[in-house]
């Protein structure tokens, strides 16, 4: 059964995350953006906006985020309010709840309104007391009810539990009714069925009723252990409804007729009524009284139809022809039999498991849009371009689909593991459908997580068998999903290795969970080299074990001393290699204090302490703190974790530092504002001290927000004529720089050299032009990184607001995305960062709930890791928010009702200016101070200016240059130029680049083929030899530092110093060897000066620990001049040296020269 085309798989993913969204509805996003519609200009006396001092607001300034209502109409026209006594009762109840929540230490739940009565706070608190460290809870956010509770024993008062098991299950519901928000569980929950496992675990299912009527698809489960303890609860239900009528307005007969007519119109089938009943039907978050009519037409057509009992409106229809959840079994790749939870559709069984507590029947459209399922899909040997259901007509026979059986069973166990162990509902913690794809490609010997699905190849039969045949492989890939929805560690260098490490952790722990004594610390042993037994992909306990298949030479690292210092082009910095170092630490802790404690510590570290740029040291610090959180400071657990990291060489007390703030630009401050009357752009000091200057002298286009260079001297914008303009920031020397009138928005780089631009066309593409070297222009294709409601894959259709980081290597942008869903189009805005050096896109936020949009991002003036932006929630309310890209901290600056704020930071980042109507004008600019935390607004919003908009702060002046550089020089010697430098603290940098120019003013071009790593210093000095000396007499070099956030910083420029004459006679030179890194052979090049004549020459190889490893030349008597020597990377015995970095040392007489070489096999 083929289900989808290559486009509609996006709809497949969208459906799995929808929160009861309606397909085809116009979203709030589409009613606001793309392109902007300018408000009609307000007629007023010319010049009145800009005369005198700052315009006074119409009403006195108000306090608080929402307290800026000069006019009641801006609040949506709401007047009056609830009765006073109702307000008082509500306030009293709230205060009592908060008191009780504080007493029971459940303030978080009270703040989130998951518990709403003092009794519920006490209930929850007692559960924590009775189940210390074993209580797991998950909440249904929308309904604020528990969706999952697990613990050692959830019975608080044993005396209440008497009688049969079923009666005890009822007792559980009564005892916890406050927490469950059920007024009368005895009447609201009616026993439905019971399931008992072989071991004696019992699950009692109850259907929810209201006023004697069933609530469709609402039920709960109470679980008991074999020895009678209540150990779990889960359910899809809602708090006791109120205010619902039980009296139908539409008679039964009319509902039946409406149902039959609706089906005839829709399906062309005229059926007849089989039965009917009155129920409550969930429609969005509300319940509707409805008639449930079963219509049948022969054996193959039987539909359940819901008709609104008040209006007669057709609500929904579901097939009853052998549809629904089913069970079966199948033979997996290991030849074992696996129980399967399936979905039956008209006599065909599909591998869609809807048995988990996360399944949302009301939101699902089966079988192609399950919400909260574990789903196995067949890629039919395509590159994920086509998806098919895995089907059988016999639920107990899956011949030819053994890999799907394995994937289904293992993915199900992963869900169970994280739900049971961490209380986590699926990979995103919110019941996201888990999708595994088998038969990826042809003989494809790999498996991966691509951000939406876990895909598994069939293997090549030699190196690997079908990758779905390994539980730890399947659960490793799903572990990536959990990482993505938590710390979201980026896939490079140590963050990437930590990401891979956690994936191995999840894979191995799930194996231990599911197989008990059959678990181990080997990864992929079931699928590695099918013809060879005993080997594996990785060994977490002993990474350098000889049974590891095809390790990097000489072996996977076990300690930081063996760390593979690779470039970004080499496995993104060795993410799949260095992962074994923290994995070894993890196993050490497991074996010392047990897996149960260790997995909780690691999970807490991942979800509470790590962020996307976390290094190994941050994992160490997070895990130690997590151990302290769970077991106490100075506990044996905390010490064990610290010792384990010490053992593998991950040491230190300082975590990854935030990048330092940029020094303030202390020049003249201005705000650029747009005048809605004529559409021109003006600049004005924040204090309105002087008249406003018209700097654009023409009308600004819909997306043409002005952008300034960092020193405020240049401005770029797009005019209403769709042309790009550039000018001095005082408006002088304006020039149109575009040829074709097809531009929408622009951004100018900090240095004023690069211009990012977006066309008016629907395309996910940003152009970046070099204003100094025009031929260097390029475009960047954007990939949707943010999952909003579950959409994956890159359907970026329009980028709008853009801003360069001051360091220049990143472009912050927002983009409109489009996804197909249910026959309609769903659009949303999100925010991303584009790294210009390689075009990599990074999401700023994780899954955006459907119906929400974020946009209009702006960077802080003095920090490239703090942004402000607009956030519109599903109700259309707009908040101006902040977000720290490094720490993940967020704040709320102001509540802006339904108006987009388009914020901009002040020069010292102490204020934010934003748009909001003011003084009776639709366009205005407000200002609010930032609280000391730098993230939240201080609540002192006030109108700064009216009849103006699109505020953009800029400062005319230069920033002082921080002192990073200690020395920088370049000398010409022996036919080449040697650039040497020292920095104050090399740890601030990842590496360096050298650029060469004909003059200090540029232009510069890069002359280092790759980044010089920050650990390449010899005796504190870095060095680069330029074999292509410049021709110009005034040639110079510019040093660029790449800091730990990836920013490029210009550290200095130096001219060339002529060499000292005597050095030319005595100083030997080591030229760059090539290739470097090398795998087989490299050519060593060196120069012997005239002064070395008669002196023996040695060429030696030392490792990073200073040990002599090879000596290609020993005591050779060579003539002065250039020499070359082929070296195969072996020692004197011909044994290849290990992969890694080495020092090459040339000594001729008394003089020595050194250079670093790298072996990469």
């Amino acid at each position, binding site marked *: 059964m083929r289900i989808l085309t290559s486009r509609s798989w996006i709809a497949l993913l969208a459906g799995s995350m929808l929160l009861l969204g309606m397909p085809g509805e116009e979203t709030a996003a589409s009613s606001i953006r793309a392109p902007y519609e300018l408000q009609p200009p307000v007629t007023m006396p010319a010049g009145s906006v800009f005369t005198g001092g700052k315009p006074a607001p119409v009403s006195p300034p108000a306090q608080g985020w929402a307290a800026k209502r000069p006019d009641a109409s801006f609040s949506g026209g709401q007047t009056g309010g609830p009765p006073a006594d109702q307000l008082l009762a509500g306030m009293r109840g709230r205060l009592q709840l908060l008191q009780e929540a504080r007493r029971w230490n459940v303030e978080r739940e009270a703040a989130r309104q998951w518990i709403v009565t003092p009794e519920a706070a006490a209930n929850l608190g007692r559960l924590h007391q009775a189940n210390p460290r074993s209580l797991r809870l998950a909440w249904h956010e929308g309904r604020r009810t528990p969706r999952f509770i697990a613990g050692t024993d959830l019975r608080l008062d044993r005396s209440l539990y008497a009688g049969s098991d079923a009666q005890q299950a009822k007792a559980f519901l009564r005892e916890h009714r406050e927490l469950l928000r059920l007024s009368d569980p005895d009447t609201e929950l009616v026993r439905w069925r019971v399931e008992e496992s072989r071991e004696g675990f019992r699950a009692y299912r109850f259907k929810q009723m209201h006023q004697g009527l069933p609530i469709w698809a609402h039920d709960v489960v109470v679980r008991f252990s074999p020895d009678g303890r209540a150990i779990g609860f889960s359910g899809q239900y809602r708090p006791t409804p109120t205010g619902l009528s039980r009296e139908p307005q539409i008679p039964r007969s009319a509902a039946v007729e409406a149902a039959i007519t609706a089906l005839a119109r829709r399906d062309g089938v005229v059926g007849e009524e089989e039965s009917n009943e009155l129920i409550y039907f969930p429609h969005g978050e509300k319940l509707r009284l409805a008639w449930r009519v079963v219509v049948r037409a022969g054996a193959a057509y039987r539909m359940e139809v819901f008709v609104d009992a008040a209006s007669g409106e057709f609500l929904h229809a579901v097939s009853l022809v052998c549809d629904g959840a089913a069970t079966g079994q199948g033979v997996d790749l290991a030849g074992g039999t696996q129980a399967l939870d399936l979905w039956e559709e008209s006599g065909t069984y599909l591998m869609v498991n809807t048995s988990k507590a996360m399944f949302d029947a009301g939101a699902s459209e089966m079988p192609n849009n399950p919400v909260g399922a574990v789903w196995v899909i067949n890629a039919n040997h395509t590159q*994920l371009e086509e998806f098919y259901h895995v089907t059988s007509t016999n639920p107990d026979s899956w011949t030819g689909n053994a890999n799907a059986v394995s994937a289904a069973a293992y993915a199900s166990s992963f869900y169970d593991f994280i739900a049971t162990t961490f209380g986590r509902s699926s990979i995103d913690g919110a019941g996201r459908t888990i999708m595994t794809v088998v038969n990826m490609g042809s003989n494809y010997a790999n*498996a*991966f*997580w*691509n*951000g*939406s699905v876990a895909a598994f190849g069939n293997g090549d039969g030699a*190196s690997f068998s079908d990758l779905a045949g390994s539980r730890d492989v399947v659960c*490793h*890939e799903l572990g990536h999903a959990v990482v993505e929805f938590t710390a979201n560690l*980026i*896939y*490079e260098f140590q963050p*990437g290795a930590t990401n891979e490490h956690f*994936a191995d952790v999840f894979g191995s722990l799930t194996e231990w969970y599911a197989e008990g004594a059959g678990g181990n610390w080997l990864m*992929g042993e079931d699928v590695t080299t099918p013809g060879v037994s005993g080997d594996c*992909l990785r060994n977490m306990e002993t990474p350098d074990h000889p049974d590891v298949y*095809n390790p*990097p030479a000489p072996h996977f690292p076990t300690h930081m001393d063996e760390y593979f210092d*690779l470039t970004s*082009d080499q*496995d*993104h910095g*060795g*993410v*799949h*290699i260095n992962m074994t170092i923290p994995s070894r630490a993890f196993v050490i802790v497991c074996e010392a204090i047990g897996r149960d404690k260790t997995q909780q510590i690691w999970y807490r570290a991942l979800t509470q302490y790590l962020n996307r740029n976390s290094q190994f040291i941050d994992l160490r610090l997070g895990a130690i703190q997590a151990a302290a959180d769970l077991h106490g400071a100075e506990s044996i657990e905390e010490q064990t974790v610290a010792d384990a990291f010490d053992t593998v060489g991950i040491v230190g007390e300082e975590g990854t530092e935030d990048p330092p703030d940029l020094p303030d630009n202390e020049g003249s401050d201005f705000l650029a504002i747009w005048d809605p009357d004529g559409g021109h752009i003006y600049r004005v000091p924040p204090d309105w001290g002087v008249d406003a200057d018209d700097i654009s002298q023409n009308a600004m286009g819909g997306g043409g927000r002005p952008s300034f260079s960092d*020193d405020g*001297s240049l401005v770029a914008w797009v005019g209403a004529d769709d042309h*790009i303009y550039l000018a001095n920031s005082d408006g*002088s*020397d304006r*020039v*149109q*720089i*575009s*040829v*074709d009138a097809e531009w929408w928005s622009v951004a100018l780089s900090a240095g*004023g050299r690069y211009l990012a631009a977006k066309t008016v066309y629907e395309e*996910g593409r940003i152009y970046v*032009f070099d204003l100094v070297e*025009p*031929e260097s*222009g*390029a*475009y*960047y*294709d954007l*990939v*949707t990184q943010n999952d909003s409601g579950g959409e994956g894959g*890159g*359907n970026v259709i329009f980028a709008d607001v853009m801003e360069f980081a001051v360091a220049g290597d990143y472009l912050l942008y927002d983009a409109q995305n489009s996804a197909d869903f249910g026959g309609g189009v769903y659009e949303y805005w999100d925010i991303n960062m584009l790294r210009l*050096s*390689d*075009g*990599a896109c990074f999401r700023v936020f994780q899954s955006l709930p459907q119906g929400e949009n974020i946009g209009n991002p702006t960077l802080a003036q003095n920090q490239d890791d703090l942004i402000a932006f607009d956030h519109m929630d599903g109700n259309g309310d707009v908040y101006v928010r902040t977000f720290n890209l490094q720490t993940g901290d967020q704040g709320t600056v102001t509540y802006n009702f339904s108006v987009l704020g388009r914020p901009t930071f002040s020069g010292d980042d102490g204020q934010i200016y934003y748009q909001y109507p003011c003084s009776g004008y639709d366009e205005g600019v407000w200002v609010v101070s930032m609280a000391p935390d730098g993230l939240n607004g201080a609540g002192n919003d006030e109108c700064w200016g009216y009849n103006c908009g699109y505020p953009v702060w800029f400062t005319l002046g230069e920033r002082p240059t921080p002192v990073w550089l200690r020395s920088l020089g370049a000398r010409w010697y022996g036919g080449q130029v040697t650039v040497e430098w020292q920095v104050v603290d090399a740890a601030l940098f990842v590496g360096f680049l050298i650029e060469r120019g004909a003059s200090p*003013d540029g232009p510069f071009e890069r002359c280092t083929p790759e980044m010089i790593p920050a650990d390449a210093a010899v005796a504190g000095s870095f060095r680069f030899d330029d074999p292509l000396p410049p021709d110009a007499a005034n040639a110079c070099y510019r040093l660029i530092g790449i800091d730990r956030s990836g920013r490029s910083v210009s550290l200095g420029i130096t001219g060339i110093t002529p060499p000292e004459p005597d050095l030319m006679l005595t100083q030997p030179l080591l030229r760059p060897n090539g290739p470097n890194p090398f*795998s087989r052979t490299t050519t060593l090049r060196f120069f012997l000066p005239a002064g070395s004549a008669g002196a023996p020459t040695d060429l030696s190889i030392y490792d990073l620990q200073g040990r002599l490893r090879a000596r290609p030349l020993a005591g050779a008597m060579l003539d002065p001049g250039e020499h070359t020597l082929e070296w195969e990377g072996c020692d004197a015995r011909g044994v290849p040296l290990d992969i890694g970095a080495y020092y090459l040392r040339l000594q001729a007489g008394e003089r020595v020269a050194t250079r670093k070489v790298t072996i*990469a*096999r």
Partner: protein
Amino acid sequence: MRALTAGILGLFCLTILAGCTRSGDRRENEPRLPGDLMIVFGEGGGITGLWQGYSIQPDGAVLRWEGHAAEQDPQRVGTLDDATRAALWAEIQAHGLLEGQAGEQGDLTRFIRLTAEDQTHKVAWVPGRRAGGGRGSWESLYRLLTETATGKSSPHATPGETGD
């Protein structure tokens, strides 16, 4: 104005933005095959952590590589003639690879890196995500390169084929 004058800006009024707005249309097919044309493509990561792919060198030599990083341990597996390489060059231009930049990093990454006329262009993406290109997707170009390098097809047989 600091470094730019209206006169200088006037120069690139004509050069920067003219014709820069349509991918795939901007650059006419070069009749001459660049002498330094080097194409490296492959994928790596995933559960195995291994990287594998091909390099098509300026002299037409086809190398297959596999290891724990890209381009490790290259082994010669064949040769492409100039006509085949010229056809690939045409396809590469049609896909807009020379103008585009795309850099995705994921659990598993595919990439195409091209060096021609002293310039290097690279695109990287995660399989299963939509990835752009002037005509069709990078995935379709990758498939063509793979099939050509392995001898399973020739770019001469696929002119005008649209990507997915």
